[in-house]
């Protein structure tokens, strides 16, 4: 198996799915000849031409609105929003149109499309190149929301999203784009949506996380094992909606302690939903309060971005708090 980074894996998924299905069309700013500002669509314009890879005017509502029309027509558009921070002009089209099209038409129309967008901080991007907007979309009925943490999943989940009959928000943690490398299966490769993955087995505390924070939690877990004697199990959710409740419950029933970690702000973040659901379903298995290590409830800061992000120190402290409760 070849080794790739996430950008290469995304590119491989797009190329493979475009070869497999001629309804798959890419559109967005700079995605054509230039190959995207992160190079995720590099070489696709050359291989598939201007009718499959479209450079668009600079207007997110236009990109998503056009993609909805293409999906209604029967194509499989994969629009790119250059940064998740810039998705809001298209919010109305996503929340009021794409997500509701199937429901409001009684199943007569559908909007199969994948909105790819880089998210998250840690790249010195400040407010407007660092946001993690997943909660808005998880909160919106009618969308699937996916966030990979490694190249192999990036390829498999993106391929599955393109084949899915629903609108999918596909969030790519941009600080992993080139930092995360790993083996990626060649050719067609699909990772089923809605299935989490236990990326580290342990007995004392379960960490539920996704995206770039998976890597931070893995490092924190190693330190916690060596220095604090805490055995940590880590679940990478991969699909945030619909998320894999069974895998979480099996782990929670084993460990009895839960830590939820994500980059997005704490207030009404996805961790709040996970925590509430675990309280409903597993209260009597819990030996400590469910804790959250997340971004703070402030706009994403520039100078203090590494203090803002869930880091190793904050994670280890929370693990200790859970154990010592």
């Amino acid at each position, binding site marked *: 198996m070849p080794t790739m980074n996430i950008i290469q894996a995304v590119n491989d998924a797009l190329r493979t799915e475009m070869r497999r299905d001629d309804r798959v*069309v890419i559109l967005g700013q700079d995605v054509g000849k230039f190959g995207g500002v992160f190079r995720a669509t590099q070489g696709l314009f050359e291989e598939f031409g201007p*009718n*499959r890879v*479209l450079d*668009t*005017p600079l*207007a997110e*509502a*236009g990109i*998503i*609105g*056009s*993609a*909805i*029309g*293409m*999906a*209604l*027509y*029967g*194509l499989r*558009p994969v629009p790119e929003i250059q940064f998740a921070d810039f998705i809001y*002009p298209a919010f*109305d*089209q996503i929340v*009021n*149109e794409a997500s*509701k*099209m*199937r*429901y*409001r*038409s*009684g*199943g*007569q*129309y*559908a909007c199969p499309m994948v909105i790819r967008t880089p998210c998250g901080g840690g790249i010195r991007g400040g407010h407007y190149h660092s946001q993690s907007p997943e909660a808005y979309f998880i909160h919106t*009925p*009618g969308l*699937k929301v996916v966030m990979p943490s490694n190249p192999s999943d990036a390829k498999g989940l993106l391929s599955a999203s393109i084949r*899915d*009959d*629903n609108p999918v928000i596909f969030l790519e943690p941009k600080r992993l784009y080139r930092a995360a490398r790993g083996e990626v299966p060649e050719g067609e490769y699909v990772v089923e949506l*809605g299935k989490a993955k236990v990326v580290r087995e342990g007995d004392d505390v379960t960490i539920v996380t996704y995206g770039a924070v998976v890597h931070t939690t893995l490092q924190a877990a190693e330190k916690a094992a060596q220095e604090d004697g805490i055995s940590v199990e880590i679940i990478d959710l991969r699909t945030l*909606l*619909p998320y894999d*409740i069974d895998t979480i419950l099996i782990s929670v029933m084993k460990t009895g302690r839960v830590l939820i970690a994500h980059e997005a702000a704490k207030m009404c973040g996805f961790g709040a939903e996970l925590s509430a659901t675990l309280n409903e379903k597993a209260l009597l298995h819990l030996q400590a309060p469910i804790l959250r290590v997340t971004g703070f409830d402030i706009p994403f800061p520039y100078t203090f971005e590494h203090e803002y992000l869930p880091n190793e120190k904050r994670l280890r402290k929370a693990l200790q708090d859970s154990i010592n409760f």
Partner: protein
Amino acid sequence: MPEGLVRILRPDGKVEKGQKVPSINPKDLIHLYRVMLLNRRVDERMTTLQRQGRIGFYIGSVGEEAAIIGSAFALEEKDWIIPCYRELGAALLRGFSLFEFCCQLFGNAQDSIKGRQMPNHYASAKLRFGSISSPVGNQIPYATGIGLAARLRGTAEAVLVYFGEGATSEGDFHVAVNFAGVYKTPTIFLCRNNQWAISMPRELQTASKSIAIKAKAYGIEGVQVDGNDIFGVYSVTREAVDRARRGEGPTLIEAVTYRLGAHSTSDDPRAYRDDEEVEGWKEKDPLCRFKLYLMAEGHWGEEKDAYLEEEIKNEIQAALKKSERIGPPSIDTMFEDVLDRVPWHLKEQLEELRRVQELDAVQQEA
């Protein structure tokens, strides 16, 4: 596209000097008149129904029938219609049945959208008639997208999208027309300029001299037509459709018309506009104008008209009688079609609802 306001049929039913009536066979002319009259009578009947509390809401198109039906008539079956919420006439012309329409008003078990939206928000994929959403202007960008897809696939299908003059103030209008211009999509943007966006007059929407003139800035064709003249509307739309099929790109049509009724049953226009203005526009009524023409040409007569009125009345009554009896959809359908398959959390929520309902039933029995 011609400069200035296009008008073929004058308010008095006579043909404007130097203008030619488009070639439409008498059978189609009568059919167009029938659909216009049906549209008008349905609007009147359903407004009463709302007043009686039998439906929750109604939004009609009294006065705008020519703009809607004349433009839709310029399309073929393969073309798409992306409606706003006043295009019942276009749906009826396409073959949407009155029974289906009434089922949607009641949100009953036969409603093709399963009781999921308020009245007048129907959809028909088999007629290539879009799903209606309430937010103003939201449909315009995806009409561009459908046109773009058709162009990429190399078909000669056209897309006709409707919106009011209020929608032209929305960003979605701008992005949609801009994208359409850049990609030369086969999209016909039909603005029903009915002068009023609820209580906001046309002058408050834009300082532009007209809506049609906005086309120039996007590098596309624009034309202004008397929206109460069915021949004028049909002619300019037909030309726009032909251009679209030839790959010559989009057209912005401003159909100058007037909302003779309230915005919807939730509105009372007496609070913000003069009766005089309304009376003035009643003299330009698209239906009267067309009827006068048809009578003058010998295609129509008062006797036939009285018969048609009776036929339509009965048709509406029959559709209402049949649809009002039908009960609501099953509660399971409430959780379907959110995603293509019902995910675990929605299955749980359905179960939760069922348990409460069962409890209710048990308590009522006791």
